[in-house]
């Protein structure tokens, strides 16, 4: 038995086909224009507007619920105690701010400590949105050109006992937001090096499609001695060989991970690198604005 009415209601007339055709045309047009860079400033501007608000969505929701609870309390208090209730509400607001201030203080102290240990000037920010679907791994952060962020800048973070390590590179930038290509994305390519004894072995680290995957190091010299447990850091080769390229902003010697295994792929030597930090678990990052103070 078939319900013909439901079939008829869904099948479109000429008007429906026209709407679909127009929308497909618009989607293709937007895509081509953005691919050519015509719409990119518009997209970056929209992202700049929404990224900070999205980043603060969760804290705002919790604040709203607190404020709502506070106002309900006030309603229950007698009119002659209004002044006291207001004071109480203010104090509650301050108490809510304490953990935020403590966290901010902790992050700033962490930033100062990293800047003291390394010749880097950092900009700290929360990750607004992380995209880990369709095989891609990117993140949007709430700082952009207005804060001095440019394409190609290295993005680092710390997680638990890890050293400050590379988690990605700024890929696109708007006035108040930037898109970070995480090192674990399959299209990410970063020149890296390993200090082994008195030799330096260089190569290229790229991400893999697998989730929680290691990094894949290729282009290694065949006679280069690498063993499991060797530390991998950035090589900053773009700065040497292509100073005009965006990735020239990545300084050398940012920790990336440790060598987990070494093998051969055909005639080429390859290594699997366990990153110090899984880029998908971090929520706060620093962008290396410059490495010469």
């Amino acid at each position, binding site marked *: 038995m078939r319900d013909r009415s439901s079939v008829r209601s869904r099948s479109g007339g000429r008007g429906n086909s026209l*709407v679909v055709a127009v929308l*497909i045309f618009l989607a293709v047009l937007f*895509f081509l224009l953005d691919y050519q860079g015509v719409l990119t400033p518009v997209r970056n501007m929209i992202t700049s507007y929404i990224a900070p608000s999205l980043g603060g969505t969760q804290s705002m929701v919790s604040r709203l619920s607190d404020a709502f609870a506070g106002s309900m309390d006030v309603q229950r208090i007698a009119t002659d105690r209004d002044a006291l209730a207001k004071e109480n509400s203010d104090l509650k607001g301050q108490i809510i701010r304490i953990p935020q201030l403590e966290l901010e203080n902790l992050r700033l102290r962490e930033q100062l400590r990293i800047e003291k240990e390394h010749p880097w000037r950092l900009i700290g920010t929360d990750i607004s*949105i992380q995209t880990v679907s369709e095989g*891609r791994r990117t993140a949007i952060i709430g700082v952009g050109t207005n804060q001095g962020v440019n394409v190609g800048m290295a993005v680092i973070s710390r997680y638990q006992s890890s050293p400050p390590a590379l988690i990605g590179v700024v890929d696109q930038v708007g006035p108040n937001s930037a898109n970070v290509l995480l090192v674990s994305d399959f299209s990410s390519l970063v020149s890296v090096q390993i200090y082994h004894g008195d030799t330096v072995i260089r190569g290229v680290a790229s991400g*893999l499609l697998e989730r929680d995957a290691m990094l894949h190091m290729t282009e290694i010299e065949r006679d280069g001695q690498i063993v499991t447990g060797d530390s991998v850091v950035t090589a900053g080769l773009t700065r040497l060989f292509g100073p005009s390229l965006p990735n020239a902003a990545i300084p050398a010697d940012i920790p990336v991970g440790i060598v987990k295994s070494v093998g051969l792929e055909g005639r080429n030597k390859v290594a699997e690198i366990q990153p110090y930090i899984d880029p998908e678990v971090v929520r706060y990052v620093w962008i290396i604005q410059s490495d010469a103070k």
Partner: protein
Amino acid sequence: MDNSKRRKIEEVVWLEVRTLLIVAFFVIGQRMLLPMVFHVAINAMLLLVVIQVLIEPIAIVARWAFYAGLVLDIVSGTWLGWHSILLLLAMLAVYAVLARITSENWLLPIVAVVLGGLTYHGFNILFTYALVGGFDLTKYVVVVFIPELAVILIPALPVFLLLRSWRGIRRGEVPIDVY
């Protein structure tokens, strides 16, 4: 311009803005909240679009797909239109194959999600290959396609029943299920 014409334009604009806002709400939920709750990427918009094709007129679904794609592009940092094209193609594939079958059939959402997922990811592979760079296709299928499809297959039937009931309530229909 007389008042009735102006009012009609205002109504159309309001309808589009309302659709955009609802879709944006869903997309932000998909990108920000669902991964935090379930710890997996759930392509909720693909699910909603392919299920809606089975229930609503295609022009309405196409608008959902278009707006959802644009918002997804903004929050994902991809070129504008990328996700819109993928969602519209998935919608068209489902519509082309399943439009003539009654929406009362419970197997329909499962077939629609598989078909929509195949189209969506098929074109995503093509676009990514052509515009971003080459990758291992087998790995994509194992690591991205199968898990993402499996995750949206689970709620496919409940979402379909929910949306169908909602349509029935709006129209005052009595539900009759056909097996």
